[in-house]
Protein backbone atom coordinates (compact mmCIF):
# COMPACT_ATOMS: atom_id res chain seq x y z
CA UNK A 1 0.00 0.00 0.00
CA UNK A 2 1.41 3.40 -0.96
CA UNK A 3 2.02 5.86 1.83
CA UNK A 4 0.44 9.32 1.69
CA UNK A 5 2.76 11.96 0.19
CA UNK A 6 3.03 13.94 3.43
CA UNK A 7 4.05 10.82 5.38
CA UNK A 8 6.55 9.87 2.72
CA UNK A 9 8.08 13.32 2.94
CA UNK A 10 8.26 13.07 6.73
CA UNK A 11 9.94 9.68 6.48
CA UNK A 12 12.42 11.02 3.97
CA UNK A 13 13.14 13.95 6.25
CA UNK A 14 13.72 11.62 9.19
CA UNK A 15 15.95 9.48 7.01
CA UNK A 16 17.97 12.49 5.89
CA UNK A 17 18.28 13.78 9.43
CA UNK A 18 19.61 10.43 10.59
CA UNK A 19 22.07 10.19 7.73
CA UNK A 20 25.28 11.77 8.94
CA UNK A 21 26.55 12.62 5.43
CA UNK A 22 26.15 16.34 4.97
CA UNK A 23 27.44 16.42 1.44
CA UNK A 24 27.85 13.40 -0.79
CA UNK A 25 30.01 14.04 -3.82
CA UNK A 26 29.22 11.50 -6.50
CA UNK A 27 31.83 12.00 -9.20
CA UNK A 28 30.92 15.67 -9.50
CA UNK A 29 32.46 17.44 -12.48
CA UNK A 30 31.82 20.96 -13.69
CA UNK A 31 33.07 22.52 -16.91
CA UNK A 32 32.70 26.04 -18.23
CA UNK A 33 32.67 25.51 -21.95
CA UNK A 34 35.59 23.22 -22.61
CA UNK A 35 37.42 24.30 -19.48
CA UNK A 36 37.07 21.74 -16.68
CA UNK A 37 36.77 23.42 -13.28
CA UNK A 38 35.87 20.51 -10.99
CA UNK A 39 37.03 17.04 -11.90
CA UNK A 40 35.30 13.93 -10.67
CA UNK A 41 34.96 14.88 -6.99
CA UNK A 42 34.02 11.95 -4.78
CA UNK A 43 33.51 11.61 -1.06
CA UNK A 44 31.18 11.98 1.93
CA UNK A 45 31.64 15.18 3.87
CA UNK A 46 30.34 14.63 7.38
CA UNK A 47 31.93 17.30 9.54
CA UNK A 48 30.20 19.85 11.70
CA UNK A 49 32.31 22.56 10.15
CA UNK A 50 34.04 21.73 6.90
CA UNK A 51 36.80 24.00 5.71
CA UNK A 52 37.12 24.35 1.98
CA UNK A 53 40.70 25.23 1.16
CA UNK A 54 42.73 25.68 -1.94
CA UNK A 55 44.72 28.22 -3.87
CA UNK A 56 42.94 30.79 -6.01
CA UNK A 57 41.18 29.11 -8.91
CA UNK A 58 41.15 25.68 -7.26
CA UNK A 59 37.36 25.50 -7.58
CA UNK A 60 36.18 26.25 -4.03
CA UNK A 61 33.56 28.81 -5.00
CA UNK A 62 32.51 26.81 -8.05
CA UNK A 63 31.90 23.81 -5.80
CA UNK A 64 29.68 25.87 -3.49
CA UNK A 65 27.81 27.37 -6.43
CA UNK A 66 27.26 23.97 -7.97
CA UNK A 67 25.96 22.59 -4.69
CA UNK A 68 23.58 25.56 -4.54
CA UNK A 69 22.33 24.78 -8.03
CA UNK A 70 23.81 27.85 -9.71
CA UNK A 71 25.83 25.74 -12.13
CA UNK A 72 24.88 22.49 -13.80
CA UNK A 73 27.31 19.59 -13.29
CA UNK A 74 28.83 18.39 -16.54
CA UNK A 75 29.05 14.87 -15.08
CA UNK A 76 28.22 13.14 -11.84
CA UNK A 77 26.15 14.69 -9.11
CA UNK A 78 26.06 15.44 -5.41
CA UNK A 79 23.64 15.06 -2.54
CA UNK A 80 23.07 17.37 0.38
CA UNK A 81 21.37 15.67 3.35
CA UNK A 82 20.40 12.96 0.90
CA UNK A 83 18.75 15.33 -1.60
CA UNK A 84 20.06 15.36 -5.14
CA UNK A 85 21.35 18.81 -6.18
CA UNK A 86 19.74 18.53 -9.60
CA UNK A 87 16.40 16.88 -8.94
CA UNK A 88 15.68 18.18 -5.45
CA UNK A 89 17.19 21.64 -5.58
CA UNK A 90 14.21 23.29 -3.86
CA UNK A 91 14.36 20.94 -0.87
CA UNK A 92 18.08 21.64 -0.58
CA UNK A 93 17.62 25.39 -0.82
CA UNK A 94 15.09 25.32 1.99
CA UNK A 95 17.77 23.75 4.21
CA UNK A 96 20.76 25.91 3.36
CA UNK A 97 21.94 29.45 3.93
CA UNK A 98 24.53 31.16 1.76
CA UNK A 99 26.85 34.03 2.46
CA UNK A 100 28.41 35.06 -0.86
CA UNK A 101 31.98 36.22 -1.21
CA UNK A 102 31.24 39.41 -3.11
CA UNK A 103 29.23 42.38 -1.91
CA UNK A 104 25.61 41.33 -2.36
CA UNK A 105 22.62 43.26 -1.15
CA UNK A 106 19.44 44.90 -2.33
CA UNK A 107 19.89 48.62 -2.77
CA UNK A 108 17.87 51.32 -1.03
CA UNK A 109 16.84 49.06 1.81
CA UNK A 110 17.52 49.17 5.51
CA UNK A 111 19.27 46.13 6.95
CA UNK A 112 16.17 44.97 8.78
CA UNK A 113 14.03 45.30 5.64
CA UNK A 114 16.65 43.43 3.61
CA UNK A 115 17.00 40.55 6.08
CA UNK A 116 13.23 40.36 6.47
CA UNK A 117 12.77 40.12 2.70
CA UNK A 118 15.36 37.33 2.58
CA UNK A 119 13.52 35.53 5.38
CA UNK A 120 10.21 35.81 3.55
CA UNK A 121 11.78 34.49 0.34
CA UNK A 122 12.93 31.49 2.36
CA UNK A 123 9.31 30.81 3.21
CA UNK A 124 8.88 32.51 6.57
CA UNK A 125 5.56 34.30 7.13
CA UNK A 126 5.98 38.12 7.18
CA UNK A 127 5.63 38.49 10.96
CA UNK A 128 8.07 35.67 11.71
CA UNK A 129 10.49 37.00 9.10
CA UNK A 130 10.44 40.45 10.69
CA UNK A 131 10.96 39.03 14.16
CA UNK A 132 13.83 36.84 13.06
CA UNK A 133 15.37 39.67 11.01
CA UNK A 134 15.63 41.72 14.20
CA UNK A 135 17.02 38.73 16.07
CA UNK A 136 19.55 37.84 13.39
CA UNK A 137 20.82 41.42 13.21
CA UNK A 138 21.17 41.59 16.97
CA UNK A 139 22.88 38.22 16.93
CA UNK A 140 25.54 39.33 14.44
CA UNK A 141 26.02 42.61 16.28
CA UNK A 142 24.17 45.00 13.98
CA UNK A 143 21.26 45.58 16.35
CA UNK A 144 21.90 49.28 16.75
CA UNK A 145 22.48 49.86 13.04
CA UNK A 146 19.62 47.75 11.75
CA UNK A 147 17.52 50.67 10.48
CA UNK A 148 20.37 52.13 8.49
CA UNK A 149 20.49 51.78 4.72
CA UNK A 150 22.86 49.02 3.58
CA UNK A 151 24.70 51.40 1.24
CA UNK A 152 25.91 53.33 4.28
CA UNK A 153 27.45 50.26 5.94
CA UNK A 154 31.20 49.72 6.20
CA UNK A 155 32.72 46.61 4.64
CA UNK A 156 32.74 44.80 7.98
CA UNK A 157 29.11 45.66 8.60
CA UNK A 158 28.15 44.49 5.13
CA UNK A 159 29.83 41.15 5.84
CA UNK A 160 27.81 40.85 9.05
CA UNK A 161 24.59 41.79 7.21
CA UNK A 162 25.36 39.06 4.68
CA UNK A 163 25.77 36.60 7.53
CA UNK A 164 22.47 37.78 9.05
CA UNK A 165 20.59 37.17 5.79
CA UNK A 166 22.16 33.72 5.55
CA UNK A 167 21.01 32.66 9.01
CA UNK A 168 17.65 34.42 9.21
CA UNK A 169 15.73 31.27 8.29
CA UNK A 170 17.92 29.13 10.57
CA UNK A 171 19.43 26.87 7.92
CA UNK A 172 20.68 23.38 8.60
CA UNK A 173 23.72 23.92 6.41
CA UNK A 174 25.50 27.22 6.06
CA UNK A 175 27.80 27.99 3.13
CA UNK A 176 30.21 30.77 4.00
CA UNK A 177 32.33 31.97 1.11
CA UNK A 178 35.37 33.90 2.35
CA UNK A 179 33.48 35.41 5.31
CA UNK A 180 36.48 37.30 6.67
CA UNK A 181 37.47 38.91 3.38
CA UNK A 182 38.46 42.52 3.86
CA UNK A 183 37.82 42.58 7.59
CA UNK A 184 40.12 44.34 10.07
CA UNK A 185 41.45 42.19 12.96
CA UNK A 186 38.67 42.99 15.49
CA UNK A 187 35.95 42.46 12.88
CA UNK A 188 37.61 39.23 11.80
CA UNK A 189 37.69 37.98 15.38
CA UNK A 190 34.01 38.81 15.75
CA UNK A 191 33.14 36.92 12.58
CA UNK A 192 35.19 33.90 13.67
CA UNK A 193 33.50 33.96 17.08
CA UNK A 194 30.06 33.98 15.44
CA UNK A 195 30.94 31.10 13.14
CA UNK A 196 32.23 29.08 16.09
CA UNK A 197 29.08 29.85 18.06
CA UNK A 198 26.87 28.65 15.23
CA UNK A 199 29.02 25.51 14.91
CA UNK A 200 28.89 24.85 18.64
CA UNK A 201 25.12 25.35 18.79
CA UNK A 202 24.90 22.01 16.99
CA UNK A 203 21.95 23.34 14.97
CA UNK A 204 23.79 23.86 11.72
CA UNK A 205 26.62 22.41 9.71
CA UNK A 206 29.03 24.88 8.18
CA UNK A 207 30.99 24.81 4.95
CA UNK A 208 33.59 27.54 5.17
CA UNK A 209 35.50 28.43 2.05
CA UNK A 210 38.60 30.47 2.64
CA UNK A 211 42.15 30.90 1.52
CA UNK A 212 43.08 32.00 5.03
CA UNK A 213 44.33 28.92 6.81
CA UNK A 214 44.00 30.48 10.22
CA UNK A 215 40.25 31.06 9.77
CA UNK A 216 39.71 27.46 8.80
CA UNK A 217 41.94 26.19 11.60
CA UNK A 218 39.97 28.17 14.16
CA UNK A 219 36.51 27.19 12.94
CA UNK A 220 36.59 23.81 11.25
CA UNK A 221 36.91 20.22 12.33
CA UNK A 222 37.26 18.82 8.81
CA UNK A 223 39.02 20.15 5.76
CA UNK A 224 38.66 19.58 2.07
CA UNK A 225 41.61 20.85 0.09
CA UNK A 226 41.06 21.39 -3.60
CA UNK A 227 43.84 21.64 -6.09
CA UNK A 228 43.21 22.29 -9.78
CA UNK A 229 39.63 21.14 -9.43
CA UNK A 230 40.46 17.89 -7.72
CA UNK A 231 40.37 16.79 -4.10
CA UNK A 232 43.92 16.96 -2.79
CA UNK A 233 43.05 16.14 0.82
CA UNK A 234 39.90 15.47 2.80
CA UNK A 235 40.53 14.77 6.43
CA UNK A 236 39.52 15.34 10.00
CA UNK A 237 41.83 18.05 11.19
CA UNK A 238 42.39 16.68 14.69
CA UNK A 239 42.92 13.12 13.51
CA UNK A 240 45.29 14.28 10.81
CA UNK A 241 47.34 16.17 13.36
CA UNK A 242 47.40 13.19 15.68
CA UNK A 243 48.33 10.77 12.94
CA UNK A 244 51.35 12.83 12.02
CA UNK A 245 54.61 12.39 13.79
CA UNK A 246 55.10 14.63 16.79
CA UNK A 247 58.01 16.96 17.02
CA UNK A 248 59.51 18.14 20.29
CA UNK A 249 62.01 20.91 20.75
CA UNK A 250 64.04 20.52 23.96
CA UNK A 251 66.41 22.92 25.70
CA UNK A 252 68.54 21.14 28.31
CA UNK A 253 71.34 21.55 30.80
CA UNK A 254 73.78 18.75 31.71
CA UNK A 255 75.58 15.96 29.91
CA UNK A 256 73.50 14.88 26.98
CA UNK A 257 75.48 11.78 26.00
CA UNK A 258 73.60 9.30 28.14
CA UNK A 259 70.28 11.03 27.53
CA UNK A 260 70.49 10.76 23.74
CA UNK A 261 71.62 7.14 24.03
CA UNK A 262 68.55 6.41 26.12
CA UNK A 263 66.38 8.21 23.55
CA UNK A 264 67.85 6.04 20.85
CA UNK A 265 67.07 2.93 22.85
CA UNK A 266 63.39 4.11 22.99
CA UNK A 267 63.42 4.25 19.21
CA UNK A 268 63.13 8.05 18.96
CA UNK A 269 64.88 9.94 16.21
CA UNK A 270 66.78 13.00 17.36
CA UNK A 271 68.98 15.79 16.13
CA UNK A 272 71.24 18.14 18.08
CA UNK A 273 70.44 21.65 16.91
CA UNK A 274 72.73 23.55 19.32
CA UNK A 275 74.86 23.09 22.42
CA UNK A 276 71.93 22.19 24.61
CA UNK A 277 69.18 21.90 22.07
CA UNK A 278 67.57 18.76 20.80
CA UNK A 279 64.92 18.10 18.21
CA UNK A 280 63.11 14.81 18.83
CA UNK A 281 60.58 12.91 16.76
CA UNK A 282 58.42 10.90 19.13
CA UNK A 283 57.60 7.38 18.04
CA UNK A 284 54.33 5.62 18.73
CA UNK A 285 53.96 4.63 22.37
CA UNK A 286 56.45 7.19 23.60
CA UNK A 287 54.86 10.08 25.46
CA UNK A 288 56.26 13.32 26.83
CA UNK A 289 55.97 11.81 30.32
CA UNK A 290 58.60 9.23 29.32
CA UNK A 291 61.02 12.01 28.42
CA UNK A 292 60.62 13.60 31.86
CA UNK A 293 61.34 10.24 33.50
CA UNK A 294 64.36 9.72 31.27
CA UNK A 295 65.68 13.20 32.07
CA UNK A 296 65.26 12.61 35.81
CA UNK A 297 66.99 9.26 35.49
CA UNK A 298 69.97 10.77 33.61
CA UNK A 299 70.04 13.92 35.79
CA UNK A 300 69.35 16.28 32.91
CA UNK A 301 67.53 19.56 33.41
CA UNK A 302 64.73 20.24 30.93
CA UNK A 303 64.67 24.01 30.66
CA UNK A 304 62.24 24.25 27.82
CA UNK A 305 60.01 21.82 25.99
CA UNK A 306 57.86 22.90 23.09
CA UNK A 307 55.45 20.45 21.64
CA UNK A 308 54.97 21.02 17.93
CA UNK A 309 52.33 19.22 15.92
CA UNK A 310 51.58 19.46 12.21
CA UNK A 311 49.77 22.73 11.65
CA UNK A 312 47.10 23.20 9.03
CA UNK A 313 49.75 25.01 7.05
CA UNK A 314 51.87 21.85 7.03
CA UNK A 315 48.90 19.77 5.91
CA UNK A 316 48.02 22.32 3.24
CA UNK A 317 51.56 22.58 1.93
CA UNK A 318 51.86 18.83 1.84
CA UNK A 319 48.61 18.66 -0.11
CA UNK A 320 49.88 21.23 -2.57
CA UNK A 321 53.09 19.27 -3.06
CA UNK A 322 51.31 15.98 -3.49
CA UNK A 323 48.17 16.05 -5.59
CA UNK A 324 47.55 12.34 -5.32
CA UNK A 325 45.80 12.62 -1.98
CA UNK A 326 42.19 11.66 -1.58
CA UNK A 327 39.36 11.05 0.78
Amino acid sequence: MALPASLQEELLQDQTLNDPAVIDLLGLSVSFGRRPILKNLRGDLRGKAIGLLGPNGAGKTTLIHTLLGFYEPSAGSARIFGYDIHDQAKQIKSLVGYMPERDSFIAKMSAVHFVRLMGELSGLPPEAALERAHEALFYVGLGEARYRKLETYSLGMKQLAKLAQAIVQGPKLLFLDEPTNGLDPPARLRMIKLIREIRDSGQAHIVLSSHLLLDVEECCDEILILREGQIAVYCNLEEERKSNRKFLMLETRGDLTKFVAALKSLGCEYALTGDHRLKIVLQGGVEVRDLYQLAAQERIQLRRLSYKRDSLEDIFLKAMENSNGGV
Partner: protein
Amino acid sequence: MAVYEQSYKRYIGPLTPEWSRFLIIPRHAYRGVFKSKIFTAFFVVCFVPLLVEAILIYLHHNMNALGIMKVDMRELIPIDASFFQTFVNIQGGFAFFVALLVGPPLVSRDLRNNALPLYLCRPFSRTEYVLGKMSVLLILLSMITWIPQLLLFLFQAYLEGFTWFTQNLWIASAIVIGSVVWILLLALISQAISALVKWRVIASAAILGVFFIPSVFAEFLNFVFMTHWGHLISLAALMKNISAGLFGTFVRASGTIRFEDFDGNAREFIVMEPPLWMCWGMLFLVCAICLALLSRKVKAYEVVR
Protein backbone atom coordinates in the same frame (compact mmCIF):
# COMPACT_ATOMS: atom_id res chain seq x y z
CA MET B 1 17.40 32.95 18.06
CA ALA B 2 15.68 35.33 20.42
CA VAL B 3 17.40 38.67 20.95
CA TYR B 4 17.73 38.12 24.68
CA GLU B 5 19.13 34.60 24.25
CA GLN B 6 21.72 35.55 21.62
CA SER B 7 22.11 32.03 20.35
CA TYR B 8 21.56 30.34 17.04
CA LYS B 9 18.26 28.50 16.65
CA ARG B 10 16.59 26.98 13.65
CA TYR B 11 13.16 28.20 12.55
CA ILE B 12 10.55 25.52 13.13
CA GLY B 13 7.34 27.45 12.52
CA PRO B 14 4.96 27.22 9.58
CA LEU B 15 6.06 28.21 6.08
CA THR B 16 4.18 30.17 3.45
CA PRO B 17 2.89 28.25 0.40
CA GLU B 18 5.48 28.06 -2.36
CA TRP B 19 3.13 29.25 -5.10
CA SER B 20 2.56 32.59 -3.37
CA ARG B 21 6.20 33.53 -2.77
CA PHE B 22 6.67 35.45 -6.02
CA LEU B 23 4.20 38.01 -4.65
CA ILE B 24 6.70 38.92 -1.91
CA ILE B 25 8.68 40.89 -4.50
CA PRO B 26 5.89 43.30 -5.52
CA ARG B 27 4.85 43.75 -1.89
CA HIS B 28 8.30 44.92 -0.93
CA ALA B 29 8.87 46.83 -4.19
CA TYR B 30 5.76 49.03 -3.72
CA ARG B 31 7.21 50.39 -0.48
CA GLY B 32 10.04 51.91 -2.45
CA VAL B 33 7.93 52.91 -5.43
CA PHE B 34 5.35 54.87 -3.44
CA LYS B 35 7.99 56.56 -1.31
CA SER B 36 8.46 58.93 -4.23
CA LYS B 37 5.88 61.71 -3.94
CA ILE B 38 6.27 62.61 -7.60
CA PHE B 39 5.44 59.09 -8.66
CA THR B 40 2.50 58.90 -6.27
CA ALA B 41 1.15 62.18 -7.68
CA PHE B 42 1.60 60.89 -11.23
CA PHE B 43 -0.14 57.66 -10.33
CA VAL B 44 -3.12 59.63 -9.04
CA VAL B 45 -3.19 61.66 -12.27
CA CYS B 46 -3.47 58.34 -14.16
CA PHE B 47 -6.98 58.00 -12.75
CA VAL B 48 -8.20 61.37 -14.08
CA PRO B 49 -9.23 60.06 -17.55
CA LEU B 50 -11.06 57.23 -15.82
CA LEU B 51 -12.95 59.77 -13.76
CA VAL B 52 -13.86 61.64 -16.95
CA GLU B 53 -14.99 58.35 -18.49
CA ALA B 54 -17.14 57.59 -15.44
CA ILE B 55 -18.70 61.07 -15.58
CA LEU B 56 -19.48 60.69 -19.29
CA ILE B 57 -21.16 57.34 -18.68
CA TYR B 58 -23.10 58.80 -15.79
CA LEU B 59 -24.25 61.84 -17.79
CA HIS B 60 -25.60 59.59 -20.52
CA HIS B 61 -28.06 58.18 -18.05
CA ASN B 62 -28.91 61.24 -16.02
CA MET B 63 -31.24 63.62 -17.80
CA ASN B 64 -31.51 65.88 -14.78
CA ALA B 65 -27.76 66.45 -14.72
CA LEU B 66 -27.75 67.15 -18.46
CA GLY B 67 -30.61 69.57 -17.96
CA ILE B 68 -28.82 71.42 -15.20
CA MET B 69 -25.65 71.63 -17.29
CA LYS B 70 -27.73 72.56 -20.35
CA VAL B 71 -26.04 69.88 -22.44
CA ASP B 72 -27.84 68.09 -25.23
CA MET B 73 -27.58 64.31 -25.18
CA ARG B 74 -26.50 64.36 -28.86
CA GLU B 75 -23.49 66.47 -27.98
CA LEU B 76 -22.11 63.64 -25.84
CA ILE B 77 -19.87 60.95 -27.24
CA PRO B 78 -21.85 57.72 -27.74
CA ILE B 79 -21.00 54.89 -25.32
CA ASP B 80 -19.90 52.17 -27.71
CA ALA B 81 -16.83 50.14 -28.58
CA SER B 82 -14.99 53.23 -29.88
CA PHE B 83 -15.66 55.02 -26.62
CA PHE B 84 -14.05 52.26 -24.59
CA GLN B 85 -11.27 51.84 -27.15
CA THR B 86 -10.37 55.51 -26.85
CA PHE B 87 -10.05 55.30 -23.09
CA VAL B 88 -8.17 51.97 -23.26
CA ASN B 89 -5.66 53.72 -25.54
CA ILE B 90 -5.38 56.73 -23.22
CA GLN B 91 -4.77 54.50 -20.21
CA GLY B 92 -2.28 52.52 -22.30
CA GLY B 93 -0.32 55.74 -22.72
CA PHE B 94 -0.29 56.32 -18.98
CA ALA B 95 0.72 52.69 -18.46
CA PHE B 96 3.72 53.30 -20.71
CA PHE B 97 4.94 56.17 -18.54
CA VAL B 98 4.36 54.20 -15.32
CA ALA B 99 6.41 51.33 -16.80
CA LEU B 100 9.08 53.83 -17.79
CA LEU B 101 9.33 55.08 -14.22
CA VAL B 102 9.02 51.79 -12.33
CA GLY B 103 10.45 49.18 -14.71
CA PRO B 104 14.11 50.09 -15.33
CA PRO B 105 15.54 49.60 -11.83
CA LEU B 106 13.68 46.38 -11.03
CA VAL B 107 16.23 43.88 -12.31
CA SER B 108 19.15 46.21 -13.04
CA ARG B 109 19.46 47.23 -9.38
CA ASP B 110 19.74 43.59 -8.35
CA LEU B 111 22.30 42.90 -11.05
CA ARG B 112 24.35 45.94 -10.07
CA ASN B 113 24.43 44.90 -6.42
CA ASN B 114 24.94 41.16 -7.08
CA ALA B 115 21.66 40.42 -5.33
CA LEU B 116 20.60 37.58 -7.61
CA PRO B 117 22.58 34.89 -5.73
CA LEU B 118 20.73 35.94 -2.57
CA TYR B 119 17.34 35.34 -4.22
CA LEU B 120 18.35 32.17 -6.03
CA CYS B 121 20.10 30.43 -3.13
CA ARG B 122 16.67 30.24 -1.51
CA PRO B 123 13.73 28.02 -2.47
CA PHE B 124 12.94 30.61 -5.12
CA SER B 125 13.48 29.84 -8.80
CA ARG B 126 14.51 32.09 -11.66
CA THR B 127 10.99 31.82 -13.06
CA GLU B 128 9.54 32.98 -9.76
CA TYR B 129 12.02 35.84 -9.69
CA VAL B 130 11.03 37.03 -13.18
CA LEU B 131 7.36 36.50 -12.38
CA GLY B 132 7.75 38.47 -9.15
CA LYS B 133 9.53 41.34 -10.86
CA MET B 134 6.96 41.39 -13.68
CA SER B 135 4.16 41.34 -11.12
CA VAL B 136 5.42 44.66 -9.77
CA LEU B 137 4.48 46.21 -13.11
CA LEU B 138 1.56 43.97 -13.99
CA ILE B 139 -0.32 44.69 -10.77
CA LEU B 140 0.41 48.41 -10.91
CA LEU B 141 -0.55 48.72 -14.57
CA SER B 142 -3.64 46.56 -14.14
CA MET B 143 -4.83 49.04 -11.54
CA ILE B 144 -4.89 51.83 -14.10
CA THR B 145 -5.90 49.88 -17.20
CA TRP B 146 -8.18 46.89 -17.45
CA ILE B 147 -9.48 46.70 -13.86
CA PRO B 148 -11.04 50.20 -13.76
CA GLN B 149 -12.05 49.92 -17.43
CA LEU B 150 -13.87 46.69 -16.69
CA LEU B 151 -15.56 48.27 -13.66
CA LEU B 152 -16.69 51.18 -15.84
CA PHE B 153 -18.01 48.73 -18.43
CA LEU B 154 -20.01 47.06 -15.66
CA PHE B 155 -21.17 50.50 -14.51
CA GLN B 156 -22.42 51.25 -18.02
CA ALA B 157 -24.07 47.83 -18.19
CA TYR B 158 -25.77 48.46 -14.86
CA LEU B 159 -27.17 51.79 -16.05
CA GLU B 160 -28.09 50.59 -19.56
CA GLY B 161 -29.61 47.24 -18.68
CA PHE B 162 -28.99 43.53 -19.10
CA THR B 163 -29.74 43.48 -22.83
CA TRP B 164 -26.96 45.99 -23.52
CA PHE B 165 -24.66 43.89 -21.32
CA THR B 166 -25.27 40.67 -23.23
CA GLN B 167 -25.02 42.40 -26.61
CA ASN B 168 -21.74 44.12 -25.74
CA LEU B 169 -19.99 41.50 -23.68
CA TRP B 170 -17.35 41.25 -26.41
CA ILE B 171 -16.31 44.82 -25.53
CA ALA B 172 -15.37 43.60 -22.04
CA SER B 173 -13.19 40.88 -23.50
CA ALA B 174 -11.60 43.42 -25.88
CA ILE B 175 -10.87 45.71 -22.92
CA VAL B 176 -9.26 42.90 -20.91
CA ILE B 177 -7.32 41.26 -23.77
CA GLY B 178 -6.16 44.56 -25.28
CA SER B 179 -5.00 45.98 -21.95
CA VAL B 180 -3.40 42.75 -20.72
CA VAL B 181 -1.46 42.27 -23.97
CA TRP B 182 -0.20 45.86 -23.77
CA ILE B 183 0.88 45.73 -20.11
CA LEU B 184 2.44 42.31 -20.62
CA LEU B 185 4.44 43.72 -23.51
CA LEU B 186 5.48 46.73 -21.43
CA ALA B 187 6.47 44.54 -18.48
CA LEU B 188 8.46 42.12 -20.64
CA ILE B 189 10.31 44.83 -22.56
CA SER B 190 11.16 46.86 -19.46
CA GLN B 191 12.34 43.75 -17.61
CA ALA B 192 14.45 42.56 -20.53
CA ILE B 193 16.08 45.98 -20.88
CA SER B 194 16.51 46.24 -17.14
CA ALA B 195 18.32 42.89 -17.21
CA LEU B 196 20.55 44.06 -20.04
CA VAL B 197 21.43 47.52 -18.78
CA LYS B 198 22.65 48.00 -15.24
CA TRP B 199 22.09 51.77 -15.03
CA ARG B 200 18.60 53.14 -14.53
CA VAL B 201 18.88 56.23 -16.72
CA ILE B 202 20.31 54.27 -19.62
CA ALA B 203 17.65 51.60 -19.15
CA SER B 204 14.89 54.26 -19.25
CA ALA B 205 16.42 55.75 -22.39
CA ALA B 206 16.63 52.27 -23.92
CA ILE B 207 12.93 51.61 -23.24
CA LEU B 208 12.03 54.92 -24.89
CA GLY B 209 14.32 54.01 -27.76
CA VAL B 210 12.75 50.58 -28.27
CA PHE B 211 9.32 52.18 -28.62
CA PHE B 212 10.17 55.34 -30.54
CA ILE B 213 13.17 54.65 -32.78
CA PRO B 214 11.52 51.75 -34.67
CA SER B 215 8.35 53.88 -34.98
CA VAL B 216 10.30 56.68 -36.65
CA PHE B 217 12.03 54.17 -38.90
CA ALA B 218 8.66 52.54 -39.68
CA GLU B 219 7.19 55.90 -40.75
CA PHE B 220 10.23 56.47 -42.94
CA LEU B 221 9.74 53.08 -44.60
CA ASN B 222 6.03 53.75 -45.03
CA PHE B 223 6.77 57.09 -46.69
CA VAL B 224 9.45 55.78 -49.03
CA PHE B 225 7.64 52.61 -50.10
CA MET B 226 4.12 54.07 -49.93
CA THR B 227 2.90 51.32 -47.66
CA HIS B 228 1.92 50.72 -44.04
CA TRP B 229 3.81 47.47 -43.72
CA GLY B 230 6.49 49.37 -41.84
CA HIS B 231 4.09 49.28 -38.89
CA LEU B 232 5.27 45.74 -38.30
CA ILE B 233 8.43 47.09 -36.69
CA SER B 234 6.67 49.80 -34.67
CA LEU B 235 5.41 48.48 -31.33
CA ALA B 236 2.97 51.36 -30.90
CA ALA B 237 1.48 50.80 -34.36
CA LEU B 238 1.33 47.05 -33.79
CA MET B 239 -0.62 47.55 -30.59
CA LYS B 240 -2.90 50.11 -32.26
CA ASN B 241 -3.78 47.57 -34.95
CA ILE B 242 -4.29 44.77 -32.43
CA SER B 243 -6.48 46.99 -30.26
CA ALA B 244 -8.49 48.04 -33.31
CA GLY B 245 -8.87 44.38 -34.24
CA LEU B 246 -10.17 43.54 -30.79
CA PHE B 247 -12.65 46.43 -30.77
CA GLY B 248 -13.79 45.66 -34.31
CA THR B 249 -12.53 48.92 -35.81
CA PHE B 250 -9.59 47.50 -37.78
CA VAL B 251 -9.58 48.27 -41.50
CA ARG B 252 -6.76 46.95 -43.66
CA ALA B 253 -7.15 49.60 -46.35
CA SER B 254 -6.14 52.43 -44.11
CA GLY B 255 -5.67 55.19 -46.63
CA THR B 256 -5.12 56.23 -50.22
CA ILE B 257 -2.29 58.03 -51.89
CA ARG B 258 -3.05 60.08 -54.98
CA PHE B 259 -0.30 61.00 -57.39
CA GLU B 260 0.36 61.77 -61.02
CA ASP B 261 2.44 59.40 -63.08
CA PHE B 262 5.03 60.47 -65.65
CA ASP B 263 2.29 60.84 -68.32
CA GLY B 264 0.34 63.21 -66.08
CA ASN B 265 -2.46 60.71 -65.31
CA ALA B 266 -3.99 60.87 -61.84
CA ARG B 267 -3.45 57.64 -59.95
CA GLU B 268 -4.76 56.37 -56.66
CA PHE B 269 -2.93 53.93 -54.49
CA ILE B 270 -4.58 52.15 -51.59
CA VAL B 271 -2.33 51.81 -48.59
CA MET B 272 -2.79 48.52 -46.78
CA GLU B 273 -2.07 47.75 -43.14
CA PRO B 274 -0.35 44.42 -42.49
CA PRO B 275 -2.84 41.65 -41.66
CA LEU B 276 -3.80 41.19 -38.02
CA TRP B 277 -2.32 37.72 -37.75
CA MET B 278 1.02 39.16 -38.74
CA CYS B 279 0.74 41.87 -36.08
CA TRP B 280 0.06 39.20 -33.47
CA GLY B 281 2.95 37.15 -34.80
CA MET B 282 5.34 40.09 -34.49
CA LEU B 283 4.13 40.71 -30.96
CA PHE B 284 4.77 37.10 -29.98
CA LEU B 285 8.20 37.34 -31.56
CA VAL B 286 9.05 40.43 -29.48
CA CYS B 287 7.79 38.68 -26.32
CA ALA B 288 9.85 35.56 -27.15
CA ILE B 289 12.99 37.68 -27.62
CA CYS B 290 12.38 39.38 -24.26
CA LEU B 291 11.91 36.01 -22.53
CA ALA B 292 15.08 34.65 -24.13
CA LEU B 293 17.01 37.70 -22.93
CA LEU B 294 15.64 37.32 -19.41
CA SER B 295 16.47 33.63 -19.38
CA ARG B 296 20.03 34.47 -20.44
CA LYS B 297 20.62 37.32 -18.01
CA VAL B 298 18.73 36.31 -14.87
CA LYS B 299 21.31 33.97 -13.38
CA ALA B 300 23.02 33.88 -10.03
CA TYR B 301 26.40 34.21 -11.69
CA GLU B 302 27.54 34.70 -15.25
CA VAL B 303 29.65 31.81 -16.44
CA VAL B 304 32.92 33.03 -17.92
CA ARG B 305 33.84 30.44 -20.54
